[in-house]
């Protein structure tokens, strides 16, 4: 399947205009910034309120509420208006459409998250690792958003369909605390959001390469699997459109 830069750019520009002018959806762009401004002031000496912990929470929330939601909406909106079907009639391939949309969501989320990090004033122990894990997470949540979008018929469906994602992914770091009572919850430690908490929680001094690599590898595996699943599902679902 060939991918044409020109078509990807056309879809990117079109989706940017559609997204930014649909205020009901694009208001989500300021959510991470508002969260950052609100939580920044919390006294960091309180338990559970360490800068690293709250920052990880803000990131995990933003991934679902912004990245996943935006991608699901972009796809569901096209399905709702049947424009996806007629897009399939043009020379644009599946990859053109997916890459065009995903790159828009990726760029928007990345910009917003950089601003959020700056406002929060978080100093990472290893900047490179943080950038890589956030980039991987963005791709992962975009893939999840694609799946949500494919299973919803309308915009309303899409905004509801991200709820399960929010439960599993954002809730996982807290779910781990219940692992002593319910051993099954130990699995939640392998959800990428928990791994992000671990990575961000590393202190400036005294971490091994193993501590750094484990979250990266686990997130990477999630990203690859979810991306493949979303592309395959996309192709299969659109056959019967």
């Amino acid at each position, binding site marked *: 399947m060939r991918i044409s830069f*020109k*078509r990807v750019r056309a879809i990117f*520009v*079109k989706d940017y205009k559609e997204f930014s*002018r*649909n205020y009901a959806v694009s208001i989500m762009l300021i959510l991470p910034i508002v969260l950052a401004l609100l939580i920044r002031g919390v006294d960091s000496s309180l338990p559970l309120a360490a800068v690293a912990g709250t920052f990880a929470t803000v990131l995990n929330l933003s991934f679902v509420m912004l990245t996943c939601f935006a991608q699901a909406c972009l796809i569901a909106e096209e399905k*709702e208006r049947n*424009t996806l079907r*007629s897009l399939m*009639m043009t020379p644009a391939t599946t990859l053109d459409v997916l890459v065009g949309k995903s790159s828009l969501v990726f760029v928007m989320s990345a910009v917003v998250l950089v601003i959020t990090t700056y406002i929060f004033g978080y100093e990472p122990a290893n900047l490179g690792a943080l950038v890589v894990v956030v980039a991987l997470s963005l791709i992962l949540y975009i893939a999840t958003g694609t799946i949500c979008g494919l299973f919803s018929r309308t915009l309303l469906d899409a905004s509801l369909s991200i709820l399960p994602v929010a439960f599993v992914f954002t809730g996982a770091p807290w779910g781990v605390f219940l692992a002593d009572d319910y051993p099954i919850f130990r699995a939640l430690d392998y959800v990428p959001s928990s791994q992000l908490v671990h990575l961000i929680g590393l202190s400036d001094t005294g971490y091994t390469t193993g501590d750094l690599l484990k979250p990266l590898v686990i997130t990477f595996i999630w990203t690859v699997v979810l991306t493949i699943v979303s592309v395959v599902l996309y192709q299969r679902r659109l056959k019967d459109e």
Partner: protein
Amino acid sequence: MQFEPIYQNGKLLLPKFELQMNPNESTGIITDLKRKQLVINQLSDRSRYFVLRAGQNEYLHLTVTELITFLLQVTERKDRLDPLMDYLALNEVRKVKVKKLPPSKRMYVTLLRAFFAYQPTIVLEEPYFYLEEEDRRHLKRILEDLSQEKSILILTSNLEDAMISCDEIYRLNEFGFHPLDIRDSGEDKQGIKEHDSPNITLQKISTKRNEKVILFDPPEVDYIESLDGSILVHVDGENYVCVSTLTDLELRLTHFGFFRCHRSYLVNLQKVREIITWTKNSYSLRLNTGKDAVVPLSRSKLQELKALLHI
């Protein structure tokens, strides 16, 4: 293109038929909603058929210029924007967002996706239905230009819509798939009318009800009865008063298959289902109308009836 037959509950919904699509010609199929759906389902090959469904919508937040630019880029066509906007007659609404366009214009803009199709065959469902006069004219012009290189198939439930721009028109319904020859069928109908009219007007049965004169065709009538000196014409369970006499009616209606089965009854033999024998000397006729109607049959008339029916 070939269409496969489709059955539902043992009934043939879509017959097997083949459509010869010539370039430089547009074809129309007049059919109903269900069969439109079945036909479109069989045109799912995206590399050969560009299908524009009636439910197609548009990107609402783009302006018309942005939309056309997007379509140009995504289909990788080389046309220049300005002459194209002129050609598509969109100059007046260039800066208007699609969602702010009047409904007819929005539909027209949506239909322009067909202009950008690369497939050799364009299939449009009800293209003219929502369009106003002016937009219809523009679309017709664009479709005519398109049909120079591509074949166009229009699916509609409306004969007039099909006649706007189709060279060949077919009708697809429960009786199958048949070409519609517009000129010939018009002449035929006229011929039939001239031929039939003297007969029909002569043989109508005129009745009165509530001061209104109602005319019936003889085959509609179930039976006619004489009751207390007035003549009642029974049609579909209702009765109407007729002014002429039973003997008069019998003379006029004999060659329509009516039979004087009793001194005061004239029955339409086409509608008789059963001859009931009550006793050796008493008979009745049951009619196969909606309501259960039974007409007496005189013993003297039985032989005559048997001869008529060859029993």
